[in-house]
C-alpha cells in the first residue's frame, strides 16, 4: 500500500506538485492522468525517491519512506519508463537479471527467474536472450523493460508512460497483456499516462491531475459518470464520454433474458463491451442483438431502447442521491 498525504514538490519558485493526497491500496492499479507538465511523473518519481519531495509524507507498507535506504527501496520497487532505459551494452537476459544480481541472488536462481520472466512476457529464450536492446523492436524492448521491473518480484510497480512511444497496434496489444498480467500477479501499480483510453482500460483507480493538483480521483466509471469540471470532462473525451463509459461495461450486464420473439440474427458474445455492441448495431442497422455464450448459443438479448432507458434511470437515481 502506498499513501501520500499533503505531498508537495517545488523546483525553485515553481510548484510541480501541490499538497496532493493519494492512497493506492495493495494490489490495485492506479493511473495518474493529465496533460504534460501536470506533475504526474514527478509524483511517481517521488515514490521511489528519484526525486525527493519538498514536504508531506509518503507511507509505504506502513512505514515512512525515510525509513528505507533509497537504494534498497528502489530494488523492491519495479520501475518502467517510456524509452525503456535498457542498458545498451547488455544482452536482454543480463538486463532482466539486473535487480536479482544487485540483490546477490545465486546465479542459478537468477537464470531460472530470467527464463521464467521471458516466458511470461512472450519472449522466446533462444531467440531473445542474447540479443542487444538495439536489435529489438519498440514493443519487444518494452516487454524486456517490464520483465526487468518484475525480476525481483517487487510488490510495487511504477510505470512512467511505458507505452507512450509505441505504435497504436503494439500499444493496445501490450495494454491487453499488462491487464492480463496484472490479473494474475496483483501488483500495486502506479501508472502515469496522458492517454485517457489507456488509463480507463487498465486502472482500478483513476487520478486526474492538473497544474500539480489532483482535480478528481475515483473509479473510472465514477469519473465518467460524474466528471467534476469541464477539464476532466474534456480529458475524458467530451461528447465521446458515453461511448467510453460503454466500453467499460460488459454486454452481459445489460442483456435481458430471451423473450418470446425470435432472437435477432445479429449475434454478439456476452463478454464483449457495450461499446462494441453499439458499434455493431450502427454497422448492421439494427437495434437488437442476440447475446451468445462461448459456444455460440443464444443466452439473452440486447436492445438499444433498453440500454438508453437504463441510462436514463441511472441518471435519475443519481440525481436523487
Amino acid at each position, binding site marked *: 500500500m502506498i499513501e501520500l498525504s499533503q505531498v508537495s514538490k517545488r523546483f525553485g519558485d515553481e510548484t510541480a506538485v501541490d499538497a496532493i493526497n493519494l492512497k493506492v491500496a495493495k494490489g490495485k492499479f492506479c493511473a495518474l492522468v493529465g496533460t504534460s507538465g501536470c506533475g504526474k511523473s514527478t509524483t511517481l518519481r517521488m515514490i*521511489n525517491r*528519484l526525486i525527493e519531495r519538498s514536504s508531506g509524507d509518503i507511507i509505504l507498507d506502513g512505514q515512512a519512506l525515510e525509513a528505507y535506504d533509497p*537504494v*534498497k*527501496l*528502489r*530494488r523492491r520497487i519495479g*520501475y518502467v*519508463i517510456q*524509452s*525503456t*532505459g*535498457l*542498458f*545498451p*551494452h*547488455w*544482452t536482454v537476459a543480463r538486463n532482466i537479471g*539486473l*535487480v536479482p544480481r*544487485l540483490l546477490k541472488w545465486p546465479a542459478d536462481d537468477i537464470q531460472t527467474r530470467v527464463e521464467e520472466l521471458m516466458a511470461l512476457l512472450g519472449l522466446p529464450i533462444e531467440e531473445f536472450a542474447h*540479443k*542487444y*536492446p*538495439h*536489435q529489438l523492436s519498440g514493443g519487444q524492448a518494452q516487454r524486456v523493460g517490464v520483465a*526487468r521491473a518484475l525480476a525481483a518480484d517487487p510488490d510495487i510497480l511504477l510505470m512512467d508512460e511505458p507505452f507512450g512511444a509505441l505504435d497504436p497496434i503494439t500499444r493496445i496489444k501490450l495494454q491487453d497483456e499488462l491487464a492480463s498480467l496484472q490479473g494474475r500477479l496483483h501488483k500495486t501499480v502506479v501508472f502515469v499516462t496522458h492517454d485517457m483510453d489507456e488509463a480507463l482500460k487498465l486502472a482500478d483507480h483513476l487520478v486526474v491531475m492538473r497544474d500539480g493538483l489532483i482535480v478528481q480521483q475515483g473509479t473510472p466509471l465514477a469519473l465518467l459518470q460524474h466528471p467534476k469540471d469541464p477539464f476532466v470532462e474534456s480529458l475524458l473525451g467530451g461528447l465521446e464520454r458515453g461511448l467510453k463509459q460503454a466500453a467499460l461495461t460488459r454486454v452481459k450486464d445489460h442483456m435481458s433474458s430471451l423473450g418470446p420473439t425470435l432472437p435477432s440474427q445479429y449475434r454478439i458474445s456476452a463478454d464483449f463491451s457495450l461499446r462494441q455492441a453499439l458499434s455493431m448495431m450502427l454497422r448492421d442497422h439494427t437495434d437488437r442483438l442476440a447475446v451468445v455464450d462461448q459456444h455460440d448459443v443464444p443466452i439473452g438479448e440486447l436492445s438499444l431502447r433498453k440500454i438508453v432507458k437504463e441510462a436514463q434511470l441511472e441518471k435519475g437515481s443519481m440525481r436523487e442521491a
Partner: protein
Amino acid sequence: MSLLDALPTPKLRRGGYPNAVLVSMSIVMLAVLWGLDAVSVAPNRIVQGTGVGVLGAIGLPGAFLASLLILAIGGLACQPGRTNYAAALGAVVLLLALMPFGLMVASYFLIDPALPQARLGIGASYWLILFILLLCLIELRLRLALTRLLPGLLLAGVGLLWWLCASLWLDDLALVQEFKARDRQFMRAVGQHIVLVGVAVGVSIVLGGLLAMLMRRFKRLQKSAFAVLNFLQTIPSLALFGLLLAPLAWLAANVPVLAQVGVSGIGNTPALIALVAYSLLPMVRNTYIALEQVSPDTLEAATAMGMRRGQQFWQVRLPLALPVLLEGVRITTVQAIGLTAVAALIGAGGLGTFIFQGLGQAAMDMVLLGALPILVLALLVDAALGALAEALRPGGIQ
C-alpha cells in the same frame, strides 16, 4: 574509428558510372610513372644523386608491366562491380608486392659493383605511386565494404615481403645502407620512442582520467581547466622543451634526490613532462565528453533499478563511455608518436635522433630512416586502437 570511417560507404552498383576516383588515380599514376624520376643514383652518401627515369631503372619490360597493371586498375574501375573491384584490389596488391623487385632490378642495372660507396635512392615517382596505391586500397576497401582485417593482412604481407627484400637483396639501397650502418642504434631508438610514448600516454591516461572525474564533480573547474590545457596546446613544442630546461636544471642542481632519480634539464624528464602536457588536452576532453555523453535516461534507469553510485559508474557509465574514451587514447597516442620525434632535440633519444642527424648531415636517407618508422608506428597504433574501440562497441551498435 579512423577518419576514413566517417565517409559513407557507397552502395555497389553493377554497370554504373566509372569509378572516377580510381580512374583518375590510375591516370595520375601513369603520368607520374613516365614523367618523374623513379630512382636516383649517387656515388656516395653526401653527394646529391642523379635522377633516373622509369626506362633507365627497370627497362622497357618492367615499365611495360607497371603501366599495364596501372591501366588495369583504371580499366576495371570503368565498369564497377564486385568482381572488377576485387580484380583491381589484386592489381593494387600485386603492384605493391612488385615494387621492391623493381628496386632490385634498378640496382642491378645502375649500381657499379666496383664502387662500394655507390647507392640507390628512391625517387619521387616511386613514393608518389606508393602513396596513390595506398589511397586506391582505401577506396577499394570502402567499395568492397571490407573490414579492417583483410586489407590489414594484405598490407602486413606486403610489408613482410619488403622487409625480406630489403634485408636480403637490397644492399645498394641508400635507406638500407643507412640502416645497416646503425642497426643497433636504430633498434634502441625504436625502443626509446615506444617507451617515451607509452609512459607519456600511460601517465596522461591516469592524470586525464582523474582530471575528467574532478571536472565532473566540480563543474566550475571545467572552464579554467580546459583554458589551461588549451593554452598548453598552443605553445610550440620546441618552446615548451626550452621553457622546461631552466627550471628542471635548477631543480636537479638544488634537490639532490631529484637528480638521483634522473631529473635534469635535458633528456627524458623534460621530454616526458612536455609530452604529458600535450597529451592531456585530447585525453581529458575525450574522457570528459565520453563520460558525459552517456544518455541520462539510461543512467536514471540505473538509479531507479537500485544501483549504487559506484555500481552505476563501473557497470553502466564507464562501459558505455569506453569507445569514445579509447578514441581519445588513439588521438593522444598518434599525436605523441609524432611529438616524440621533436624530443630528440633535447636528448631524449628516439627516432627523431635520425631525423635531426640526417638533416644536419644533409643525408636525406637518414631522415627517412627516422621518419618512416614513425609513420608506420603511428599507422599501426591508429589501426590497432581503432579496431579495439570498434570491438568494444556493445553488441556492435552504430
